[in-house]
C-alpha cells in the first residue's frame, strides 16, 4: 500500500514508526490506524455473520431438513446474532469511523488515551477469539440465541461459557472506547470548537459513548451471573433454586435495549453529515437534532421492557413500557423530518453516498414504523417472537446501521485511502443490494403476521411461499455486497488519487490532506466565531 502518495509528506498509511510491517499496525496507537484495524476485523466478522445468515436462509428454503440439522440451525442463529450484534454493529460505526474521524473533526491530533484505544482493539480481538473458540472447540457451538435466556442458558449442554466471557470482554472493549471518546470530546476540542459547533456525528458519538458506559456493565454482570450459575450453581436465576427468569430478562434488556441505540445513533450521525454535504446546504435544525440525539440516548435507557410484554410483567409495567416506547420514537421522527427538510431548496449532488443515505432513510422508516407496531401492547402479543420481529430488527439494525455504514464508507473512503472508487460499480452494487434487501426481509413481515414464530428450524407448509422469496432475496443481496466490497478493495489499492475535498464538505476532516498525515494537522486549527461545521455560503 505504499505506491505513489497523494500527499508528498508521509501520511498515516505509509508512516514508519518503531515497528515495521504488520506490527506497525497492531501496535500503533494512532487513532486512524486503529480505526482501520477495526474496519478490517469487523469486516471479517461481518463476512462470517453473513455466511451464517445465508446458511440459515438456505435451510429455510423448504420445510424439513434442507442442509443442516436442528442443532446446527440453533447454533447458527445464536452465533450469527452474537457476531452481528456484539462484533459488528455495536462497535461498527463508533470504532471504525468514530476512531478515524472524531479527533480530526474536533481538531485534535489523537484521542485522549491512545494506548487505551489500542487496548480496546486488542480486547475486541480477544473477545472475538473467545467466542469463536466456543464454536470450534468443546461440546458444540452455543445454542441459546443471542439473548442467553435463563434457564435454558444453564440447561444446555453446549459450550456456552467461552461465548459468555467473550461477550463480556467485547463489552469491556466497548466501554473503554466510549470512555475514551467522552474524555476526548470534553478535553481535546480545538480552540473555538464550542459545543454548539460540534459536527453532528461527534454529537451522536457523545450520546453513544454515554450509553456504552452506563449500560454495558449491566449486561456484563448479568452474563457473569449466568456463568457463575453454570459453573458453581450459585442460585441467582435458576427457578429451581428460587430465582426468577424474568429478572434475568430485565437485566439483559436494561443493556440490550440501549444497545440498539448504540447501533443506530452513530448511523444517524453519519447521515446527518452526508445529507448537508450533498445538498450543499446547512443542516436544518442543528439544535433540534442534537436535542433528539440526547433524548434518544436518555429515554432509550428507560424502555427496555418492551421486549418482555408477553413474559408476564405486571400490568403497570406493561403500560409504562409501552408508553415510553412510543415516546422514544419521537426524537427519531424529528431527525427524519430535519434530514428531509435539509434537502429542501438544496443543490443536490446525487452521488453514491447520497443513494445510501436516502435508502437509509427509507428502510429506517420501515424498520422504525414496524417498531411502533411492536411497541403497541395488543399488537405485540400477536407479533412478539415471530418473524415480524426478525423483519423489524433486520430492517432497522442492518437497514439502518448497515446502510449508514456503507454510506459512511463511500463518503469517507477518499479521505481514508486518498483514492476514489469506481462510481459506476458502486451505484450498481447499491441498487442490487437494495433490491435484494427488500426481497429478503419484506416477506418476513408477512410471515410474522401469519404467525410464524422466530428461531424455527422447521415450519408448516403454509409459510413456504414467503420463505422462498426471502431466500432468493438473500442471494440477490449478497451479489450486491460482493460487488460493493470488491469495488472498495480494488479502489483502495489502485483507485485514482482523490482530492482533499471531493464532496465539498465543511467539517474539519475535509481540510486535511487525503489520506491525513500522521498528526492530522500541522497546526491545531482555530475555529472562527462565524464559522461552523455546516457553513455553506
Amino acid at each position, binding site marked *: 500500500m505504499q505506491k505513489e502518495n497523494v500527499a508528498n509528506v508521509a501520511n498515516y498509511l505509509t508512516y514508519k514508526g518503531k515497528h515495521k510491517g504488520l506490527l506497525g499496525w497492531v501496535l500503533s496507537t494512532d487513532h486512524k490506524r486503529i480505526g482501520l484495524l477495526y474496519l478490517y476485523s469487523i469486516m471479517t466478522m461481518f463476512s462470517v455473520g453473513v455466511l451464517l445468515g445465508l446458511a440459515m436462509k438456505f435451510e429455510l428454503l423448504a420445510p424439513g431438513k434442507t442442509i443442516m440439522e436442528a442443532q446446527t440451525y440453533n447454533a447458527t442463529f445464536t452465533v450469527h446474532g452474537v457476531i452481528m450484534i456484539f462484533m459488528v454493529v455495536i462497535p461498527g460505526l463508533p470504532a471504525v469511523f468514530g476512531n478515524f474521524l472524531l479527533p480530526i473533526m474536533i481538531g485534535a491530533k489523537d484521542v485522549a488515551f491512545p494506548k487505551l484505544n489500542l487496548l480496546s482493539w486488542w480486547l475486541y480481538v480477544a473477545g472475538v477469539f473467545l467466542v469463536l473458540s466456543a464454536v470450534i472447540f468443546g461440546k458444540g457451538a452455543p445454542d441459546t440465541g443471542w439473548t442467553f435466556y435463563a434457564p435454558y442458558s444453564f440447561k444446555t449442554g453446549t459450550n456456552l461459557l467461552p461465548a459468555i466471557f467473550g461477550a463480556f470482554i467485547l463489552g469491556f472493549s466497548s466501554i473503554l472506547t466510549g470512555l475514551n471518546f467522552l474524555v476526548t470530546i470534553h478535553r481535546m476540542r480545538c480552540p473555538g470548537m464550542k459545543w454548539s459547533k460540534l459536527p453532528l456525528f461527534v454529537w451522536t458519538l457523545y450520546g453513544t459513548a454515554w450509553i456504552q458506559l*452506563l449500560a454495558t456493565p449491566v449486561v456484563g454482570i448479568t452474563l457473569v451471573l449466568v456463568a457463575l450459575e453454570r459453573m458453581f450453581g450459585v442460585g441467582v436465576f435458576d427457578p429451581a433454586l428460587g430465582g426468577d427468569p*424474568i429478572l434475568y430478562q430485565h437485566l439483559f434488556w436494561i443493556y440490550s435495549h440501549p444497545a440498539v441505540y448504540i447501533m443506530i445513533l452513530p448511523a444517524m450521525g453519519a447521515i446527518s453529515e452526508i445529507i448537508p454535504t450533498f445538498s450543499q446546504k446547512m443542516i436544518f435544525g442543528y439544535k433540534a437534532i442534537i436535542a433528539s440525539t440526547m433524548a434518544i440516548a436518555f429515554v432509550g*435507557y*428507560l424502555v427496555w421492557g418492551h421486549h418482555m410484554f408477553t413474559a408476564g*410483567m*405486571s*400490568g*403497570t409495567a406493561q403500560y409504562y413500557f409501552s408508553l415510553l416506547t412510543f415516546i422514544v420514537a419521537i426524537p427519531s421522527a424529528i431527525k427524519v423530518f430535519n434530514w428531509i427538510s435539509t434537502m429542501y431548496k438544496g443543490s443536490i449532488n446525487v452521488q453514491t453516498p447520497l443513494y445510501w443515505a436516502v435508502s437509509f432513510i427509507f428502510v429506517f422508516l420501515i424498520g422504525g414504523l414496524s417498531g411502533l407496531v411492536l411497541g403497541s401492547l395488543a399488537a405485540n402479543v400477536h407479533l412478539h417472537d415471530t418473524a415480524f420481529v426478525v423483519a423489524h430488527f433486520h430492517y432497522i439494525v442492518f437497514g439502518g446501521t448497515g446502510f449508514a455504514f456503507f454510506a459512511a464508507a463511500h463518503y469517507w473512503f477518499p479521505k481514508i485511502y486518498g483514492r476514489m472508487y469506481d462510481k459506476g460499480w458502486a451505484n450498481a452494487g447499491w441498487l442490487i443490494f437494495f433490491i435484494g434487501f427488500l426481497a429478503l426481509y419484506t416477506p418476513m413481515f408477512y410471515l410474522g403476521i401469519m404467525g410464524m414464530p422466530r428461531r424455527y428450524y422447521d415450519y408448516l407448509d403454509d409459510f413456504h411461499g414467503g420463505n422462498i422469496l426471502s431466500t432468493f432475496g438473500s442471494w440477490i443481496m449478497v451479489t450486491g455486497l460482493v460487488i460493493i466490497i470488491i469495488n472498495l478493495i480494488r479502489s483502495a489499492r489502485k483507485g485514482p488519487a482523490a482530492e482533499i475535498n471531493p464532496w465539498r464538505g465543511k467539517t474539519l476532516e475535509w481540510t486535511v490532506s487525503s489520506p491525513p498525515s500522521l498528526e492530522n494537522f500541522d497546526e491545531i486549527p482555530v475555529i472562527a466565531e462565524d464559522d461552523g461545521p455546516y457553513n455553506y455560503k
Partner: protein
Amino acid sequence: MSEEKHHIVPYRVYVFVLLALLALTFASIGITSIELGEFTVAAALIFACVKTFLVLTYFMHLKYDKKYIVAMVIFVFAIFFAVIVITFLDYLYR
C-alpha cells in the same frame, strides 16, 4: 500546567469526615438492632446514603471539583435510581 494547582484539603477535614463516617456506621448498627419493622431497611439505606454523600464530597473531592463533574456523577446516580424504580414497577404490582 497551572490548572494542576487545585485546592489542598487540610488534614483536619479528613479526620472530621472519618469521625462522622464512623459515627454514622455505629448509629446504623444501633438503629437496625432495634426492631423498626419495615423501616429498618429505609433507616439503614438513609445512613448509607449520607455516608456516600460524605465520601463523594470530601474524600473524592467533588466539593472542590468543576461543576460538570458533579453533574455527571449526579446523572449517573439518577439513571441508576430510575432503573431500579422502573424495575420495581414490575415487581410491586405483580
